[in-house]
């Protein structure tokens, strides 16, 4: 009986002793690591400090002005370029409907290329269509209606494609953000079919909420 108890205690002592040493060495390792991390942190912080000084030196206004002169030639902002509020910025003038002007243009005007289905060239066409009248005025062309039609279809195209693009581009992007949440997905799908032209402010607030 006494033997058994002694054995138990002996075993316990051995186990405790072993565990103690184990913990001790583990702690030592962690301490070494901490030491290393701290030394690294300090080195990094000093590095950052030096880099910050270098960054400032590289950002000397004199140097930036010289770089600007050499590569960008940006001018100082003129007072007339500064507006107090967003409402002060005048809207781009609405382009005149193309038909009457072009219809008035004489016959032999070269026909502009028909509006392709792609969006970006379509945009170009609209711009050329708007610009043509000036040139077409002197050159003679009576075949104006196709031009106008092309321009019109281009505008329509843009509208279509823009809206078509807006819907799918929107939904997956938001879906990606919240892949695992069915409620969120439901919300998004509810929101996207409506596809109203959203204001920038709303977009920003939505992004803020999703964070």
């Amino acid at each position: 009986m006494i033997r058994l108890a002694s054995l138990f205690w002996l075993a316990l002592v051995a186990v405790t002793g072993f565990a103690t040493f184990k913990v001790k060495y583990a702690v030592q390792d962690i301490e070494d690591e901490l030491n290393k991390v701290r030394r690294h942190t300090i080195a990094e912080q000093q590095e950052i400090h030096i880099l910050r000084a270098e960054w400032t030196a590289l950002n000397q206004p004199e140097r930036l002005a010289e770089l600007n002169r050499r590569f960008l030639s940006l001018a100082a902002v003129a007072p007339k370029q500064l507006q107090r509020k967003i409402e002060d910025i005048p809207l781009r003038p609405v382009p005149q409907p193309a038909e009457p002007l072009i219809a008035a243009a004489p016959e032999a005007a070269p026909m502009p290329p028909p509006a392709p289905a792609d969006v970006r060239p379509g945009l170009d066409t609209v711009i050329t269509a708007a610009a043509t009248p000036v040139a077409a005025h002197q050159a003679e062309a009576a075949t104006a209606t196709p031009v106008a039609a092309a321009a019109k279809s281009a505008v329509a195209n843009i509208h279509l494609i823009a809206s078509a693009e807006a819907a799918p581009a929107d939904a997956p992007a938001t879906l990606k953000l919240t892949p695992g949440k069915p409620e969120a997905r439901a919300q998004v799908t509810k929101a996207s079919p409506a596809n109203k032209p959203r204001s920038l402010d709303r977009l920003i607030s939505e992004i803020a909420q999703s964070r």
Partner: protein
Amino acid sequence: MTTAQRLDENPCRPRHFKPPPPCAPVVADERANQVLDTCRTRLVATAALFAVVFLVVVLRLAEVALLSGGGAESHVGRLPPAAPPAPARADIVDRNGALLATMLPKPSLFVNSKALLAAGQNPDEAAYELASVLPDKSPGEIRARLVSGKSFAYLQRSLTPRQQYAVNRLGIPGLDFTPEERRFYPYGDLAAHVVGYCGIDNEGLAGVERGLDASAKGGRQPIELSLDARVQFVLREELLKVIHDFSAKGAAGIIMDVRTGEIIAMVSLPDFDPNKPGDTDASKSPADAKERIFNKITLGDYEMGSVFKIFNTAMALDSGVTSLSKGYDASHPIQIGRFTIEDYHGKHRWLSVPEIFMYSSNIGSAKMAVDAGAERQRNFLARLGLLQTAPVEIEEVAKPHYPAVWRPVNVMTIAYGHGIAVTPLHVITAVSAIVNGGVLHPPTLRKLPPGIVPAGEQVMSPKTSEQMRKLMRLVVEFGTAKMAAAPGYVVGGKTGTAEKNSGGRYLEKKLLSSFIGAFPMHDPRYAILALVDEPHGTKQSFGYATAGWTVAPATSRIIQRIAPILGVAPVDEASPAVTQALTIESLQGKRIESY
């Protein structure tokens, strides 16, 4: 019987253990009892000792295990700190956090020649490699130190981080660095006079480095200045242009937030590079080191000339001696003693107060001052802080010079800014108070928290301030400072062209042209002062070197460039809100002779 006897003989028998039967005769043995007592006491003492020791162990265990106290902390304390040691001097940053001054490690490279040779390094090769990294040392020079046999010999003091990296990359044994720190000014000469510079032992010798030396040495929190490096750059660049265009000797400028007294920019040219304050760069200007280090804004006592008419007119209006609808006869020069007071741009007729100010009439101003009297004039200038040293954070400040006895002739000359010499810092501080509603804020180079407006001292009525704003706007609209106009920013101000006084004589060809203004005048935010030292007329300025032709156009350019930086939105100068705030009723319907 025998058993009991035997038992009883045992002296260490516990008392309760089988007592002798009552029939047995009690042996009264004194000696045995004594021994028994001693034994018992020893036992108790030992037990108590063990108990105490075990208690201590138990308590300690409880403390370590349960209260998590004890030695763990002292162990952590031996670890290196989590942050780098505090620098010898705190950083200095501008109001947007751009570094104006910082400490950089500038380690010195030394060689342990013994170790190098013991490692079997070829000294010729090492010297050649090192010379490619350290450009100002020759291989021969380096080799001599590598083979010197000393365990410590400097190869190069103050290495740049790049050089240190390059040396490390060479991997030459026996080389090491001593950690040293040096003050570094990344923007160079941009704000040299404000920031100042340090000596070899990192002690502040000039500018803020000297003025705020204690707080710079104090810790790691950067010192935030009110300066804006971008504005500072614009001011400096335009002033350099003025110096160049008019082949001037020097120039200076200062921009102040009129609501708080914060100095946004302060430039004095020629200036110096605080990284090497003693050096002079002859390619930029022939000035010597002493002249470069001289801060014209705070140390230069100048007779500011017509700029003082701002103070004179404000004094006359505030004391009620005159009003905007009154005027003075300025048709004849004033003779007083050996002085003759004349007008530079004489109109030779009666002039109203706005006209006196606009055409900068000395005669009218002198008469106005005489009307108010010496007492009022002196008190008013004193209230504006023009008769004492300007209270600012840097120590390079000059005392104003003014007559000890305020005689009548002094009253007259001081009216148009002669016979009194103050620093440009004085002028801009006082003008800020005049345009901001009459509240004087002491100038400061330290950034104030946004939205905090320090309590100032009301030195004149808000009404006078409003009238002065109108008058200053008039000068730019129709008067001598038309070229200072910056469309959209409603600039107002006053020019001053003074002849420099040298040994009591005025030198006609040596001018000090200055312009002090503020913008936007209907609700002033910033005051700006620019002055140019000894400008020479050019073809473009039709030979004129006066303020209206030299610093006024520069001020216009400066304002147009800095206003967007400072967040001042341009307004329509013809809008009713602006014109209403700046119209002088007494001038309505009168023809203003364009100047």
